[in-house]
């Protein structure tokens, strides 16, 4: 087995292990940390595929920014993993889960059959590529020439997401609080109390 194969197997094992532990954890913080572990292993796989820029983006932006956002939210909600989530709701679960799981297993079996036992997939073993393949320069050239319009559209999407996130996460009476100080603060305290009473 070549060194490439060893690296591939190790990073695959780490990626799958991290993903499984992510959904198995009770504590949300541990869940996020296992997901970051899985992402780093996936970045190694991207490097093996020659996608150097994408793998750097995956580590810097994805595990560095997006998952830290998850951590911030967990911190704001003060989740400790001690909330009893109880049993899953009965109506949909078992039959649907069995169907979807059976479909996925059949899909996996087909992939294994066609990749290991039968002829190789049409693309076969990967040939060699140019040394600039996957570099930041190449990706940027594509993004600013052929895919210029989709690229610009994503900036509008990001703007909409920013505005939407701010509007959704804002407290309802934040403006009144700012205007009329204490009176609104007292009102807010009252409304919080009623919410608590409702949930209790």
């Amino acid at each position, binding site marked *: 087995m*070549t060194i*490439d194969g060893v690296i*591939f197997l190790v990073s695959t094992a780490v*990626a799958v292990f991290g*993903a*499984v532990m*992510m*959904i198995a*954890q009770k504590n*949300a913080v541990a*869940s*996020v940390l296992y*997901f970051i572990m899985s*992402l780093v292993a*996936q970045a190694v796989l*991207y490097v093996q*595929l020659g996608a150097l*820029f*994408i793998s750097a*983006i995956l580590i810097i932006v994805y595990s560095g920014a*997006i998952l830290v*956002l*998850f951590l911030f*939210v967990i911190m704001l*909600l003060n*989740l400790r993993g001690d*909330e009893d989530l*109880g049993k899953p709701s009965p109506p949909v679960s078992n039959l649907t889960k069995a169907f*979807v799981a059976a479909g*996925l297993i059949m899909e*996996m079996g087909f*992939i294994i059959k066609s*990749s290991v036992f039968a002829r*190789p*997939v049409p*693309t*076969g*073993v*990967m040939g060699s*590529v140019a040394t600039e*393949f996957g570099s930041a320069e*190449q*990706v940027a050239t*594509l*993004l600013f020439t*052929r895919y210029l319009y*989709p*690229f610009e559209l994503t900036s509008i*999407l*990001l703007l*909409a*997401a*920013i505005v*939407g*996130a701010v509007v*959704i*996460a804002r407290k309802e009476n934040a403006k009144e609080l700012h205007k009329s100080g204490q009176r609104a603060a007292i009102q807010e305290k009252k409304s919080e109390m009623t*919410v*608590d009473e409702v*949930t209790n």
Partner: protein
Amino acid sequence: MVNISAFLLVGAALFGIGTLGVMLSRNIIVLLMSVELMLNSANLVIVAFSRALNLMDGHAFVFLVLTVAAAEAAVGLAMVLTIYNNRRTVNVDKYSLLKW
């Protein structure tokens, strides 16, 4: 050099784990992360085919998918914050206000 179908297998496995997470988890935050995991597995498959066909276009797609994932995470977490302020729980089974 590792065969491309091995990378496709890893992508399929990660997607299956993500689907299981969406179906089984009752914590809204773990559920959102499972969706992110499914997006990532799709990215892995796109990059694998991009490498096999020796075309860079897949990398541009992956870039766009990462952007969409970031936007989804931001809006989704904002909604989690708001609903947590109202319901005081992260259990998705309790988020049935609109259930008829």
